[in-house]
């Protein structure tokens, strides 16, 4: 293992962050709160500077909490006035949190969809009506990307769509701005589309998981009712901006999408299970079965029928589940030790109205998520909103659900730099675009979409919730 300077700095900052609070005596913060502050510092430093992979940091977080903060750990064996320690099962149990199971179901569906080329065939069918004019081709590509990324990971969707657009880019003249528009349309549409469903992208899981811990459940369909209108408008806006910024010179584009649906027995089983699962997810209100329970349908039936094999299961992106679980676990201690409340207490919130709080959380999140992982950003910020709600420090009119959703969605809207999201990195790697072009379009679309989020949070979501 090679160690570079960045790793040394990251590790040092993180470890100092973990140790220092042990030697401090902060007024109004319990002993356990000090320990949690250390774990929080370490996690934040490791997630930001990445001396180890971000999922490894999540694993470390769970480990440290079990050892340092649980009832069965080293220090806190009994209940005191200031801290009621959780059993270690609460921390490791985050790995089986309903939102993790929901994602597992989503992973299995997405993996099977790729395996039987359902993603590509859906693309083929959906693109047809968009014709051959460059403007509408870009719109078509963005719509398809957004729809798919609502159910698959944004990154996998982007990789698949690259196989569709790269041949087009190769045929378009070298100096035609359409090339840039095309290359940017895919990652942007994927980032926006991921917002549409709870399983679209991990920041959604962070938000739903944290709300779940507060006893608030948002049904799959309810999330979609909240998010889809925003996604549609943001997508159209992004399309308009991209086609204005990068006006096509050619007036005719051919897409070569030949192929046909896989009609093997396994593929048809997949189509049926996929359809039933999605249908049951969006009709949760009607039948009352929770989305995590429904997520077990693809898990069970696709593996029983060997549509998904042992090898496929081994290849699932398990590290994402650890990443989200680590965040949920950290949230437990931040709340139970009073740390989150203490952090929140250091700001006098009463002078802020609910609108200002929404704007603040949204913009801070959008800013940070451009430089950090979207999931990590949501993980670090959502517990603050939760504590703000439970501490009673916030002003009248503060709605935890709305603020949490604002945080999750704003994180997904960060797409200014190649490092902001893996889809951006893929688009950048094609060599078709310059960082400055991505930044210009990404900032414009990100900021305007944030305005949309705020409008939704003020005018639309309160009607639904």
């Amino acid at each position: 293992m090679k160690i570079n300077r960045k790793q040394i700095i990251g590790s040092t900052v993180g470890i100092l962050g973990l140790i220092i609070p042990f030697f401090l005596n902060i007024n109004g913060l319990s002993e356990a709160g000090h320990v949690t502050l250390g774990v929080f510092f370490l996690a934040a430093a490791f997630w930001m500077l990445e001396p180890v992979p971000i999922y490894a940091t999540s694993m470390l977080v769970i480990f440290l909490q079990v050892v340092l903060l649980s009832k069965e750990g080293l220090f806190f064996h009994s209940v005191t006035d200031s801290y009621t320690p959780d059993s270690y099962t609460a921390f490791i149990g985050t790995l089986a949190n309903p939102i993790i199971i929901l994602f597992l179901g989503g992973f299995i569906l997405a993996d099977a969809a790729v395996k039987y080329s359902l993603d590509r065939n859906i693309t083929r069918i959906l693109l047809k009506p968009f014709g051959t004019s460059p403007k509408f081709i870009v719109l078509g590509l963005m719509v398809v990307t957004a729809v798919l990324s609502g159910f698959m990971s944004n990154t996998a969707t982007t990789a698949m769509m690259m196989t569709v657009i790269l041949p087009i880019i190769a045929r378009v003249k070298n100096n035609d701005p359409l090339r840039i528009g095309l290359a940017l349309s895919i990652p942007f549409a994927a980032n926006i589309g991921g917002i549409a469903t709870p399983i679209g992208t991990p920041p959604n899981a962070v938000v739903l998981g944290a709300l779940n811990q507060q006893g608030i459940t948002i049904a799959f369909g309810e999330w979609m009712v909240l998010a889809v209108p925003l996604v549609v408008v943001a997508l159209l806006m992004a399309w308009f901006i991209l086609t204005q910024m990068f006006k096509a010179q050619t007036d005719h584009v051919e897409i070569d999408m030949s192929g046909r649906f896989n009609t093997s027995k396994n593929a048809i089983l997949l189509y049926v299970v996929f359809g039933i699962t999605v249908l049951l997810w969006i009709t949760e209100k009607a039948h009352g079965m929770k989305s995590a329970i429904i997520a077990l349908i693809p898990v069970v039936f696709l593996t029983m029928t060997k549509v998904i094999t042992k090898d496929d299961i081994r290849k699932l992106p398990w590290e994402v589940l650890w990443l989200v679980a680590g965040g949920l676990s950290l949230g437990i201690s931040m709340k139970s030790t009073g740390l989150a409340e203490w952090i929140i207490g250091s700001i006098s919130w009463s002078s802020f109205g609910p609108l200002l709080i929404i704007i603040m959380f949204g913009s801070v999140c959008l800013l940070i998520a451009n430089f950090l992982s979207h999931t990590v950003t949501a993980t670090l910020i959502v517990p603050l909103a939760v504590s703000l709600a439970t501490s009673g420090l916030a002003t009248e009119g503060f709605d935890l659900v709305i603020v949490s959703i604002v945080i999750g969605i704003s994180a997904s809207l960060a797409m200014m730099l190649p490092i902001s999201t893996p889809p951006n990195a893929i688009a950048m790697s094609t060599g078709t675009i310059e960082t400055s072009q991505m930044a210009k379009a990404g900032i414009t679309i990100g900021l305007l979409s944030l305005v949309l989020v705020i409008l939704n949070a003020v005018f639309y979501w309160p009607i639904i919730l």
Partner: protein
Amino acid sequence: MDHEIYILIVEDELEVMDAIVNDLSEFEDHFPIETANTAEEAQSVVDQIYHANNEVGLILCDHVLPGKNGVDFLIELQSHDLARNSKKVLVTGQAGLEDTIQAINKARLDHYIAKPWTKEQLDSVVKEQLTNYVIDRKYNPMEFMAILDSVKLAESMRANPLTDN
């Protein structure tokens, strides 16, 4: 990448060597080119490259060489722990049927280019083979999208579950 992926050209005629190197100039920035005039020299170049923790992604090899011939050299490389993964292309006008069969069966030859070749033909073979090499070796496809076969690389990313973070 923290190390280099080399293209090795084994050819005894200088003009032919120059022509190949020239035709591959667009790859040289990303894949440094090494040359050897004989199989024996090629063997030591391969060892040097791996000794410096780099690797040979592609070998373009003539068949008729002074000393050991190209096909025998490629067959021997199959017992090299690391170089057996390199993509192997025979560039020749003079390999007989028997030699060619040997090369395919025993050296896992990846491609056969008959002399004379065109620059387009050579470029597309090199691009294809290097693309296959980085995919086989599971290197991050994104680092090669701009220079190699981007569609095939994107396809390989689709096949391996990718995650948001």
